[in-house]
């Protein structure tokens, strides 16, 4: 029959297949991009075809969709949401604001590069990305998962010091609770 390595390989394939086709997105609209999600989910573009579904709480979710600009105040909440999610978890940066600040490049209160604060697996550019672009971003994420390359959570765990340093630099009054994650 199989040895251990082969067996775990087969289990991994099954796991990745299931993970890939069942992406639950936490319903947390951060910026203006959240308005693109209702058409993505409903009958016009129907993301449920790919197993993409909204989930009500971060505990049940797999994907954190950062829809647009993040003010420092929101970033605090996003970090808490992200850390409450259970592994494996993925982050999709949505819109130019998450990539380089977009039209808020000179704002006094929005961060400009999301991947300094949270490990981003896939970026979708555009201002705003259309639902087609959103779905293509999800499909890219599915590819990464099936290849085993969507390792954002692992990166976050390994480089936690670096991420924390960046987060603390922006969030001046660090009053974050201790989690049991």
């Amino acid at each position: 029959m199989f040895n251990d390595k082969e067996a775990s390989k087969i289990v991994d394939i099954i796991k990745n297949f299931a993970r890939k086709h069942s992406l639950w997105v936490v319903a947390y609209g951060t910026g203006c991009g959240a308005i693109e999600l209702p058409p993505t989910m409903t009958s016009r573009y129907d993301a449920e075809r790919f197993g993409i579904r909204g989930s009500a709480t971060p505990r049940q979710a797999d994907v954190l969709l950062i829809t647009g600009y993040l003010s420092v105040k929101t970033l605090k909440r996003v970090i808490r949401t992200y850390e409450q999610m259970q592994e494996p978890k993925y982050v999709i940066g949505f819109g130019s604001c998450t990539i380089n600040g977009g039209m808020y490049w000179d704002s006094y209160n929005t961060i400009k590069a999301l991947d300094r604060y949270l490990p981003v697996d896939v970026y979708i550019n555009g201002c705003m990305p259309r639902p087609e672009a959103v779905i293509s971003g999800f499909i890219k994420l599915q590819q990464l998962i099936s290849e085993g390359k969507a390792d954002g959570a692992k990166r976050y765990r390994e480089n936690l010091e670096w991420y924390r340093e960046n987060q603390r630099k922006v969030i001046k009054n660090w009053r974050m609770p201790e989690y049991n994650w």
Partner: protein
Amino acid sequence: MINMNKNLYNENQTIEEIKNTFHTAEIKLQRESRIIVKLRSDLIPPFLSYAKNYLAFNHLAHFSCVDWIEDNEFELVYLLYSYEKNIVVIAKTRISRDKAEFVTIKHLWRQAETYEREIHEMFGINFTGNDRLNEFILEDWDDIPPMRRDFNTIQFAKDNFYTRPGREDAQDVRETITKKSGEKIPDFAKEFSVRNLK
């Protein structure tokens, strides 16, 4: 421009009434249903009270602030709307930038409290009588209020937030496109090119 064909009866009557009561007010009819009233700062509370109670301007539509750093002054702008007359009265006053303090109008309109909190946070103007001027939208802000014009936003963003360096070949989109496709940049577009602006 004022369209003289329109019936400006309500506007003219309002202007007359304000003029008779507040002699020092500078009144300007900007266009139909827009009246700008410039007042001394100590006349603002009586004027608002008068407008609300006698001229039926019941609605405080907006309350905002402008930073005139050249004159070393803040301008407070009150927008009042009357449902009966369908007129917006814009009451403006200037206060000194050095002593940024004004009286609250929350006894006239409850919603003014929230506007005052916002202006306090964004411009650092203190409203005496308003006891809710605590932290509102900005969390943990320890710099000078961000909407003041002496606050250098770009420098602040550069200092605090990491700026991703742009791609070298994408500094000017037009040039990249012309290089790739071999097209020429048209002359009218050249003068707006990023290289020329520098």
